[in-house]
């Protein structure tokens, strides 16, 4: 299968974790008392790091290590405080106890502040860790900014990123002066383990690829001059993970042999930990130059990686690529309309998710803003409420510094607890996120994809999250704190004499406008959530052209070296064997499984037209058997399906899909026409039917035009099989595998998956984006409710006397309630008004992320306004009801 499989790619295994204790935890060492740290700091670190490794080196171990260091330091500090007599009535120790007691009495406030902080820190740490791990991740090779992928580009059919034929990759290598290039290709291979062939991802590379990338194996050597040409002993490199998991981390493995596809290969070297190129590949094989040279120039197959030479620019490289393309075009036929172009690798690999992730980054920052506004509100109200309590403390002799300590300790404690909970939750959210985001990111306009290599809690982000929590809490509490402290003891005395009432309301006047700002941001986020929900709904309504539910898919076989007739016979025997499995209703064969991001092109000739070959086109094609369309439930819209006799003898019939028919036979007369392809196994075929399009590149990419031909003309030695069942498909996986092995136990069986999981990959990014935006909007909405409720409650509480007097003078309950609601009403109206403007601006900014929905969709906008306004009014109304129930006797008595 090695030479001819076109972009067959197994799902890459997870990235190997690093085994060094996270150095950011060193930031906890300064928490230890200085003397102890000086004497034992390095040793404490060594022991903690040792335990981290023994506990599995994951995020749980990291949390345990943080707890280990933090609690160790806390105990020593507490001992120090006790020994120095700080608990005897002076200084931080007493202040701390005072603050803790005070917080205990206000558990509702503490709970609210901690939840607000935890939500903001958890959401921000999660999203920004993910951004750090994907958009900003450092590749394993040096100077990634000068590395590019070189694509073929067919100007005739608009294909932007295509692979390149073997001989053309060699021409590029020899002709280019501005860059060094190397050839690579991801494939599958199998190694016999425990008597059964086990399938692994293999990276096939030209001998110079490691030099071009600047990666060296950790053990042994890479491919060299000896491996450049065929004829030597077959050799491979293995990844660190493969060496560890399958070769028992044998230090003497270099030079030993491994049986790949039945042939012994010498292990030349072991790659370093994490030294992957695009996707982790357990096995690295060499592509010999002479075998690349011998391939057909029309057989496009390989990816090309380029590293700019010092001093060269991208423009120079692209100009040179254009020149090489024209030289190839002049020298060889069949390259008309083709071009090459290079794109920096870092731009390509994140293209599909960059906009979504930055949008999510913006959205989560808005959540942080809402949380900050909420905290500011809480602190202002809290400080106003505590004036009486602080006045007592001042009257008992606390100086300005003492008051300052007490007032600042509280937000710091809350931030540490809330931020700490947020950080503890973030790794779990990241694990959840890893479940909903795709394990690989498709490269747009190509059949390639790159995996998400890293999505763990980023230390820098975690520290920033905690620092922002503490910093924001301090900053936001500062105005209220300074106001209180500046007022000093005189004010405190007045406060005491006035009973602490009346003046406090003044402290929260401006707070209402903070609420207005929260509501504005909430409208923006609700609008985003609504747009993403509508967009995904539109996608889900797309008819994919087949019925993925109840369809099991599998790839199998390595029979390239057998005569075509034998290959076709083997595939049909497998179909019969699989159809005999209890639960399988029918089965069919297709060379490339749909929705796997694989493509294969044929040059098609229309025999009813003149001026061949100018009149030929490049279109996708698939080799199938007579049961495929029935099994996949792909409806025949005109003509007929393949019959069993079409699958015998030379291939003389073809079926085209709807897009093919509409593109090439706009008059609706496709059925009955004669066509040929470049492949001698498929000439003079009559079109006997038109089948419905399959949206094999997902719901947002129009389906390609496809020509379906009977498989026996020139089969591929590795094919896909669909099995239809009314049971959950994976329940049949083992039985289907055994049924394939029942025909020939030496053949590899790989990539068993339900079709629904392959289809879901195409919805994964919008699905994940929708889930995240809805979650963030929900958090912002919840925080706004808390904010409005808090301010409204406080206003009612601080006006109890006034309300009591008004009630005694005959004000009705409805009047009192209405007055309270009216007070908050302007804030709601203005906040939501500003929010509408922001939502419309945001909608335009995310236009490119939406599908089938207008960024200014009026229904979504109305729903966002309604949801936000309803929440605000409800949150204001509940405390307002209390206003109407104030008992005048209680107040005046």
């Amino acid at each position, binding site marked *: 299968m090695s030479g001819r499989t076109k972009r067959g790619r197994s799902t890459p295994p997870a990235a190997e974790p690093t085994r060094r204790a996270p150095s950011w935890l060193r930031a906890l060492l300064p928490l230890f008392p200085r003397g102890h740290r000086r004497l034992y700091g*390095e040793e404490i670190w*060594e*022991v903690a790091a*040792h335990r981290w490794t023994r506990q599995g080196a994951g995020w749980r171990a990291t949390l345990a290590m943080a707890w280990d*260091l933090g609690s160790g330091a806390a105990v*020593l500090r507490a001992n120090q405080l006790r020994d120095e007599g700080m608990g005897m009535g002076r200084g931080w120790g007493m202040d701390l106890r005072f603050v803790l007691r005070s917080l205990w009495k206000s558990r509702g406030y503490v709970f609210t502040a901690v939840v607000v902080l935890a939500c903001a820190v958890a959401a921000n740490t999660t999203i920004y860790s993910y951004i750090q791990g994907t958009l900003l991740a450092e590749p394993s090779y040096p100077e990634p900014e000068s590395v590019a992928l070189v694509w073929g580009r067919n100007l005739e059919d608009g294909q932007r990123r295509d692979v390149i034929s073997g001989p053309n990759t060699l021409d590029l290598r020899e002709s280019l002066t501005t860059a060094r290039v190397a050839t690579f290709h991801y494939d599958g291979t199998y190694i016999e383990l425990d008597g059964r062939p086990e399938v692994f991802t293999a990276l096939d590379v030209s001998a110079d690829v490691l030099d071009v990338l600047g990666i060296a194996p950790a053990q042994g050597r890479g491919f060299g001059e000896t491996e450049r040409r065929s004829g030597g002993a077959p050799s491979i490199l293995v990844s660190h993970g493969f060496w560890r998991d399958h070769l028992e981390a044998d230090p003497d493995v270099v030079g030993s042999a491994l049986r790949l596809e039945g042939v012994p290969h010498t292990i030349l070297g072991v790659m370093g930990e994490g030294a992957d190129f695009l996707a982790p590949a357990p096995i690295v094989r060499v592509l010999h130059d002479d075998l690349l040279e011998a391939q057909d120039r029309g057989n496009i197959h390989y990816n090309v990686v380029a590293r700019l030479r010092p001093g060269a620019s991208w423009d120079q490289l692209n100009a040179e690529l254009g020149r090489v393309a024209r030289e190839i075009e002049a020298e060889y036929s069949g390259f008309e309309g083709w071009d090459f172009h290079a794109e920096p690798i870092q731009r390509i690999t994140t293209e599909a998710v960059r906009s979504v992730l930055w949008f999510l980054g913006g959205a989560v920052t808005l959540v942080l803003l809402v949380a900050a506004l909420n905290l500011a509100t809480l602190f202002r109200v809290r400080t106003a409420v505590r004036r009486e309590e602080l006045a007592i403390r001042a009257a008992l002799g606390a100086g300005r510094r003492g008051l300052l300590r007490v007032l600042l300790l509280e937000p710091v404690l809350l931030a540490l607890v809330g931020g700490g909970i947020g950080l503890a939750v973030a790794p779990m959210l990241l694990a959840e996120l890893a479940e909903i985001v795709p394990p690989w990111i498709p490269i747009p306009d190509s059949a390639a994809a790159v995996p998400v290599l890293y999505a763990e809690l980023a230390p820098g982000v975690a520290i920033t999250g905690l620092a922002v929590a503490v910093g924001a809490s301090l900053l936001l509490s500062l105005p209220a704190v300074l106001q209180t402290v500046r007022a000093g003891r005189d004010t405190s005395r007045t406060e005491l004499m006035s009973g602490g009432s009346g003046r406090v309301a003044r402290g929260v006047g401006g707070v209402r406008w903070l609420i207005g700002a929260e509501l504005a941001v909430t409208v923006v986020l609700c609008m985003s959530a609504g747009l993403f929900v509508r967009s995904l709904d539109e996608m889900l309504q797309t008819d994919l052209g087949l019925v993925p539910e109840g369809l099991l898919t599998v790839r199998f076989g390595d029979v390239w070296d057998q005569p075509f007739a034998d290959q076709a016979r083997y595939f049909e025997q497998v179909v019969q064997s699989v159809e005999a499995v209890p639960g399988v209703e029918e089965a069919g064969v297709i060379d490339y499984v749909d929705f796997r991001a694989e493509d294969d092109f044929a040059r098609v000739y229309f025999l009813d037209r003149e001026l061949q070959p100018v009149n030929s086109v490049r279109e996708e094609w698939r080799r199938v058997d007579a049961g495929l369309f029935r099994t996949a439930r792909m409806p025949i819209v005109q003509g007929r399906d393949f019959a069993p006799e079409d699958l015998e003898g030379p291939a003389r019939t073809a079926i085209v899909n709807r897009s093919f028919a509409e593109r090439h036979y706009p008059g609706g007369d496709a059925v009955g026409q004669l066509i040929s392809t470049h492949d001698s196994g498929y000439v003079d075929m009559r079109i006997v039917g038109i089948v419905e399009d399959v949206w094999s590149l997902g719901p947002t990419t129009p389906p390609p035009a496809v020509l379906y031909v009977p498989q026996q003309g020139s089969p591929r030695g590795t094919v896909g099989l669909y099995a239809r069942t009314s049971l959950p498909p994976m329940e049949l996986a083992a039985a289907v595998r055994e049924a394939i092995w029942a025909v020939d136990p030496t053949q590899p069986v790989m990539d068993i998956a339900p079709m629904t999981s392959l289809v879901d990959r195409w919805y994964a990014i919008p699905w994940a984006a929708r889930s995240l935006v809805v979650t963030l909007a929900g958090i912002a909405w919840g925080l706004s409710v808390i904010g409005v409720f808090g301010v409204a409650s406080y206003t009612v509480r601080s006006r109890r006397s006034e309300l009591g007097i008004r009630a005694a003078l005959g004000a009705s309950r409805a009047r009192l309630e209405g007055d309270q609601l009216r007070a908050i009403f302007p804030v709601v109206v203005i906040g939501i008004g500003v929010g509408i403007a922001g939502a419309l601006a945001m909608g335009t900014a995310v236009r490119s992320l939406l599908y089938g929905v207008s960024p200014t969709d009026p229904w979504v906008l109305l729903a966002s306004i309604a949801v936000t306004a309803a929440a605000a009014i409800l949150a204001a109304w509940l405390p307002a009801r209390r206003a109407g129930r104030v008992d005048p006797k209680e107040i005046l008595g």
Partner: protein
Amino acid sequence: MPIDPSGPLNPRHYLILLLLAEEATFGVRLMERIEERSDGSVRFNAGSLYRTIAQLVEAGWIELRGEEAVSEGAGAPRKIYGVTAAGLAALRAEAARQADLLTSVRALGIDG
């Protein structure tokens, strides 16, 4: 909290003194040996291990014996701790106390 040299030895202090009396060693190794010797029932984290070491050093029962170089780039040299004469005396006193206890228990005829 400083150690009270007159009272019975804290079991954790006792275990560390005993292990260091067997072999002077560094922190990571000491932690491993504690877990081995106690079948995992006694576990120190980094903070508590060095808090205990600091108390024993302060009491004059253990001391820094020297440093052991580690491979290049693997961090600072490892400090080797060993038991002092005073530490051995404390260990001996604790052993005698436990022997007395054992004798008393045996006198009641309830030893295993």
